[in-house]
């Protein structure tokens, strides 16, 4: 029996006369279901005809299968002139697996963020001056993307550099009512976050204090220690 259908798949339609009646429609439906499930590609009606027992009517089986799967997690869909099972469109999200990976912000980003928070509004040049190294574009972009900093007003100095300020969501994230709530150096020291070593004479971070005057009365004075 099955030889016959094998050959049929191979060549044209060198079919023998059916020896038995075609199986009942429910059975044909099962057959189509299994073939479509196991096949790596969508299967054409012709191929279904070739693989099913003689006298079967895969077209009809497809119609009722399609109805059967209409509300299921997979659907019977038509792909060109072939048929295949596919995930129901509303369940596509199950095929993505979102893994949330939490990473600590890099030291450069934290420092940059801290400087902006303590000195805002603050230009890139100022940040670089305080940190003593160039601020990479990536760092600033990352902080902007995190929505922790945003562009402030341009500084009214030659070159009109942009400034950065912290955002509402920064305050939100760090549980602050305003940037003024950030503790000053004295408090940091009192809290044990800084070594209590006395400042060596003349080592007071000279450049740091030479911030440019800015028109807006930056925060620097708020944090004098």
């Amino acid at each position, binding site marked *: 029996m099955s030889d016959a259908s094998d050959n049929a798949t191979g060549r044209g339609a060198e079919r023998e006369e059916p020896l038995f009646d075609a199986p009942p429609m429910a059975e044909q439906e099962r057959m189509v279901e299994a073939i479509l499930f196991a096949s790596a*590609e969508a299967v054409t009606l012709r191929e279904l005809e070739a693989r099913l027992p003689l006298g079967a009517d895969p077209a009809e089986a497809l119609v009722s299968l399609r109805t059967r799967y209409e509300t299921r997690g997979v659907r019977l869909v038509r792909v060109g002139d072939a048929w295949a099972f596919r995930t129901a469109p509303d369940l596509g999200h199950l095929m993505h697996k979102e*893994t949330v990976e939490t990473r600590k912000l890099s030291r450069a980003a934290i420092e940059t963020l801290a400087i902006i928070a303590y000195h805002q509004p603050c230009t890139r040049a100022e940040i670089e001056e305080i940190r003593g190294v160039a601020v990479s574009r990536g760092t600033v972009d990352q902080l902007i993307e995190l929505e922790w900093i945003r562009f402030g007003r341009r500084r009214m100095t030659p070159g009109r550099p942009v400034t950065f300020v912290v955002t509402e969501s920064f305050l939100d994230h760090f549980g602050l009512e305003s940037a003024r709530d*950030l503790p000053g150096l004295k408090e940091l020291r009192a809290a044990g976050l800084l070594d209590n070593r006395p400042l060596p004479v003349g*080592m007071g*971070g000279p450049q740091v204090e030479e911030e440019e005057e800015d028109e807006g009365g930056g925060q620097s004075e708020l944090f004098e220690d």
Partner: protein
Amino acid sequence: MSDDRWDQTDTEEDSVAARLAAEALIVDVDGFEGPLDLLLTLSRTQKVDLRKISVLQLAEQYLSFVNKAKALRIELAADYLVMAAWLAFLKSRLLLPPDPEDEGPSAEDLAAHLAFQLERLQAMREAAAQLMARDQKGRDFFGRGVTEDVQRIRVVKYTASLLDLMQGYARIRTRDEFRPFVMDRDHVFTMEQALDRMRGLIGYAGEWTDLVSYLPDGWQLDPGRRRSATAAHFAAILELAKRGQIEVRQGETFAPIEIRKKTE
């Protein structure tokens, strides 16, 4: 070749099959998967439940098979001959009255164990056949042809705490202050460093090896650095020896100190 016993059985087809099988045995020793397999095949001619098999008769069958093979100058693998020797021993033990001096298992125990082995091998063969007769994936049933791989989307979430922020700021603002206090440790190799190093290295120290050969590159020439590294490594191996991970030896005073991994 024919065997009297098999010829005598009767005129049924079985005997023909048995005779053919017996001849096949001779011709095709390689077809057997070892002496136990051969014994199992021979045991079929007894046509009894394996539990009731006569081990004595089986031993005789095996020995006569081996003799025929020798007569035909068929090379038998060593394990067939070992089995033959053992069966000859078992046969004599089964035939002779038990020696009261002899300790250890009785001939019956040995025979019973052999019968058990045959039965177990037979059972495993049948189990294997049943297993292979099951519907198999890729032959009788099939998995999904089209697969949709789960796309893994990695969302990286960055975090920082207020503490990080403040420490970061404090670090910058006080950075310069700390500089003068940093000790110059360029020429000091600490014991912790040496211990870390040695822990990674002792896995390879199967043979006695001179401790000096463990000194890191760059610490072997300059006398100051060499002293520091040697002292640190010496302290480290004492620590490792104390933990029972290595053995230490020294031939005589000032001789090289040698170590090797302790094997348990």
